[in-house]
């Protein structure tokens, strides 16, 4: 689909906007509908649109498969780490109040950190799903083409 001019121009215009919208609902999720789950999916959708138009190789050059693995695990670990930080500072697991002086600011900081972890994991996992299903097609085609020789 790389040769279709309309698709390419529209995608060049849309993909940054979708990514920006993803970041907006990630970091504005405390004040309007939004949060980590939605932001992760929207951000991954932008990457998948890029992969559909410019090809999977170009998309993997932006965020490699290894990076997706590492990000998926790091997001979940960030969540657990914020929880453990509360224990280390004298509270309970996933208790954000010991993190900062003011309880409200501490809760907000905790929520933002935790939502960021959720967003990273969801985005990376959605990208992983797409990468593996899309690569499978090519692998099978390669194997079958090899069988025809």
């Amino acid at each position, binding site marked *: 689909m790389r040769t279709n001019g309309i698709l390419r121009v529209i995608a060049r215009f849309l993909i940054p906007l979708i990514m920006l919208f993803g970041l907006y609902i990630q970091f504005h999720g405390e*004040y*309007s*509908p939004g*949060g980590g*789950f939605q932001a992760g*999916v929207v951000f991954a959708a932008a990457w998948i649109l890029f992969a559909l138009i410019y090809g999977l190789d170009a998309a993997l050059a932006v965020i490699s498969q290894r990076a997706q693995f590492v990000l998926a695990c790091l997001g979940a670990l960030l969540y657990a780490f914020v929880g453990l930080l509360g224990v280390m500072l004298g509270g309970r697991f996933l208790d954000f109040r010991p993190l900062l002086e003011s309880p409200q600011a501490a809760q907000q900081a905790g929520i933002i950190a935790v939502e960021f972890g959720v967003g990273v994991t*969801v985005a990376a*996992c*959605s990208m992983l*799903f797409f990468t*593996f*299903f899309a690569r*499978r097609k090519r692998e*099978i085609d390669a194997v079958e083409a090899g069988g025809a020789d």
Partner: protein
Amino acid sequence: MAWLGHFNYWIVVILMMIGFYAVIARGNMVKKIMGLNLFQTSVFIMFISAGKIIGGSTPVLREGVTVYSNPLPHVLILTAIVVGVATTATGLALAVRIREAYGTIEDDELVDPANQRPGETRLDGHAGKGDTPR
């Protein structure tokens, strides 16, 4: 308008019946997973309907609004939707592997290779009607 009090729940039950029928009666695995998703969505609609208050508003605090719908079902369903797509992806990955191993994702063919249609081949040696396994 009294009969409208349960209209949402009736539709939820009907959607659940449709999804349930697709899961147990359809032989194609992709169709089964779609049926499972229909079933799941009916449960989502039921939860969100239970949390709605007539005259309420989206649970984001604003000035001049006093009645908010219940935020708890929203949280439960929000996470359930994302977990739902994750389980769908796992099911579809299993369907892909079954297709590669047996050449089909239809229940009737998996049980009895004689139902296979021409032009489809299987890895385990069944090549259609009358063929014996290796």
